[in-house]
Structures are given as structure tokens and as C-alpha cells.
């Protein structure tokens, strides 16, 4: 590689590379800050388990898509890059879909169309456009994993609250002890309904922006 000889060799986990991985978790979170990929966060977070499977699928698709596009970046003509990106993402999503169907069929049924919708998840397209097209495979891989993880934790947080308060369980196991129900505690059936996902995300954003004032929308 000619590029490597001109600049000092970077270690695999240099500060810059670690930033790529950790920034998306907080100050550059794809969901709370960049507003990308909202659709699936809301639709499949009724239970923690589906959220977890979805998060893992997105991490896988995104890591690989970033690497593939980054490897191909010099060969892709700019005019048709969107089609190329969509093809790469769609092929990876087909793989994930087939794997889910083969190994966790029940969850795959619950996720229904949302596995397919990973293709149009704008985080993936957004990162391919903004990062992988201009960077080497390894940083692109870290960027992909980082952003997918940033997406994943919001997904898990929303899933956690919705399942805990909505059905009193976590990962399908009873989490709220039985005596609570005896003294009159009741599951909040409202949390299972779709609109509460929006409100939960709204509150997460509220808390995050309260902690980190730089993120506040001034407009």
C-alpha cells in the first residue's frame, strides 16, 4: 500500500481509532443526535429479546457493509454509488435474514418485515456515504461497529423499559417480584402500545441533552 509508506503506521487501537468506536455511543449517537435509523428502534422494542437480536443483526450488517464498501471505494464510480451500496447492504441483509430464519425462527417471525427494513435503515447508508467511501477498511470497520453499537444501546434501553414496565418481565423471565402484584402493582399495558416507544425515546433524548448541554437544539 502506497498510502502506508507516506504516513507513520497507526496502531490498531490508537486514540483516533478508539474515538471512532466510542464517539457514536455518546456525543455522536446515531439515534439521539444524528436522527438516523429511527424506524426500527420504535417498532421492535416491545421486548428486550427482539431488541437484542435486532441490535446484533445491525452490528453485523453494518460492520461488514462498511468494510466491503471501504475495500471497493476506489472502484465505485460516484454516479452509481447508491445502487452499489444498496446492493451490498441488501445482500448482507439477505444473509442475516436467512441465518435468523434458520436458527431463531420465532424471533424472526416477530421481527417480520423489520429485518428487511435494515436495508433502508439510514444509519447504514449514512455511514457508508459519510465514512466508508473515504477511509481505509479498518477505521471503517470500527466506525461501523461503533455506530451500530450506539444504535444498539438505545434499542436495548428502550426495550428494557418497555418490557419491564409493560409486561413485568425481562428477556421473557419474570422481573417484578410476585409480592408487588399482591400489594396492588399492575403492569402498565400502555407501554406495550407503539406510541409509548416514541415517548420513551423522547425522554431518553431529554435526559441525554440535559446531561450534555452542547447537544441542545438552538434553532
Amino acid at each position, binding site marked *: 500500500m502506497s498510502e502506508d509508506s507516506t504516513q507513520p503506521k497507526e496502531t490498531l487501537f490508537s486514540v483516533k481509532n478508539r474515538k471512532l468506536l466510542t464517539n457514536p455511543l455518546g456525543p455522536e449517537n446515531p439515534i439521539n443526535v444524528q436522527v438516523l435509523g429511527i424506524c426500527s428502534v420504535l417498532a421492535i422494542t416491545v421486548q428486550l429479546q427482539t431488541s437484542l437480536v435486532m441490535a446484533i443483526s445491525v452490528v453485523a450488517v453494518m460492520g461488514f457493509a462498511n468494510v466491503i464498501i471501504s475495500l471497493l471505494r476506489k472502484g465505485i464510480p460516484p454516479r452509481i454509488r447508491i445502487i452499489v451500496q444498496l446492493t451490498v447492504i441488501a445482500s448482507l441483509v439477505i444473509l442475516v435474514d436467512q441465518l435468523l430464519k434458520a436458527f431463531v425462527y420465532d424471533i424472526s417471525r416477530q421481527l417480520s418485515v423489520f429485518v428487511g427494513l435494515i436495508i433502508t435503515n439510514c444509519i447504514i447508508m449514512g455511514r457508508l456515504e459519510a465514512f466508508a467511501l473515504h477511509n481505509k477498511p479498518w477505521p471503517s470497520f470500527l466506525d461501523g461497529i461503533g455506530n451500530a453499537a450506539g444504535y444498539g444501546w438505545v434499542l436495548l434501553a428502550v426495550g428494557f423499559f418497555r418490557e419491564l414496565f409493560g409486561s413485568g418481565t425481562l428477556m421473557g423471565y419474570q422481573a417484578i417480584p410476585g409480592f408487588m402484584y399482591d400489594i396492588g402493582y399492575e403492569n402498565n399495558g400502555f407501554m406495550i402500545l407503539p406510541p409509548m416507544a*416514541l*415517548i420513551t425515546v423522547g425522554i431518553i*433524548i431529554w435526559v441525554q441533552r440535559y446531561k450534555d448541554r452542547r447537544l441542545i437544539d438552538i434553532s
Partner: protein
Amino acid sequence: MEELVSIFVRSIFIDNMVFAYFLGMCSYLAVSRTVNTSVGLGFAVIFVLGITVPINYLLENFILGRGALVWLAPRFAEVDLSFLTFIMFIAIIAAMVQLVEMIIEKFSPTLYSSLGIFLPLIAVNCAILGGSLFMQERNFANIAEAASFGLGSGVGWFLAIVGIAAIREKIRYSNVPPPLRGLGITFIITGLMGIAFMSFMGIEL
């Protein structure tokens, strides 16, 4: 005919793309700052959904589904291409968006200039792919039903984005807590609108 109207109304109000399935949220949040732009994007979505859903219906029933290739030769009865669904649907959508863009540019420059920037965006709007995937899941009986589902979903999305844009224009004059401004309050309002739309649930048509 009754069936078609029923599907149409159902997909607007009961199975609303935004409030029941959260599809197309990215552009819904990004382009809902003013009513004018959101009307433009809303029309573009109605248009593209109304075209791509019936086309993908044909694709599903004559090429991709199990045994769908029988019309070509009886020996294809066992062929099942459904694993190609995603890639074919997204290709059709991207191609149709491009085609629609060219047709509009040719025949109605005014509409083109008002929709202009939104059309390319639509290819990656998940409401469009979602519409096709839901169509596949629901096994509509014929192409007319699929078309009315597509149009209805588009109209539902249109109503949602115009509604939120109108509210966001007004809320600029309200005293929202600073950390909640912009994105946060938009999410919460969408949630409240979703609760309102849920009152349509359970209506039998």
C-alpha cells in the same frame, strides 16, 4: 369494490405507516420543519408508494414466489426465488424513483421543481420498502387491492407528516424546556398523535 375502499381506509387510519409501524421516521423527522416542504414530500411518497407496491405485487406473484414461474413452463413449479425478495424490491424501488423523477421532469417542470430534492431521498425511505414488504406479508388477492393498499399507506403518511409539520410550526412560540427542544418534543408529540390515531383501532369496515 367495497373491499378496495376498506383496504384503503384501513391503511390510512388504522394501519398508519407512521403511527402504527414507525416507517419513514427519518424523513418524517428531518423534513417536517415547515408545512410547505412536508406537503411536497408527502405527495412524492403517495406517488411512489402507489406505483411501487403494485409493481412489486406483480414481481412477487409472477417471478419470486414459490411456483410463481409456472406461467413460463410447468417444470418451474418447484422453483422458489423468495430469498431474492429484498434485493429485487429495493432495485425496483430505486429504478422507479429514478423513472418517476425523469417522467415528472419531462411533463411537469413545476411539480418537479417543488418535489425535486425529495424524490431521490425517497429511495431510502423505509415507508416505501415497508409498504412492499407488508404487501407481501398480507397476501392480497389481486393487483387492485395491492394498489389501494399502496395509495392508502401513502395518504396516511402524508397526513402524518403534514400534521406534525403544522404542530411544529406552532410550537416554536411555546416555552419548551431547552433540552427537550427540537427532536425530543417532536418525538413526544408524535407519540401523542399516535395515541390519538390508536382510537381508530378495532374499527371494522
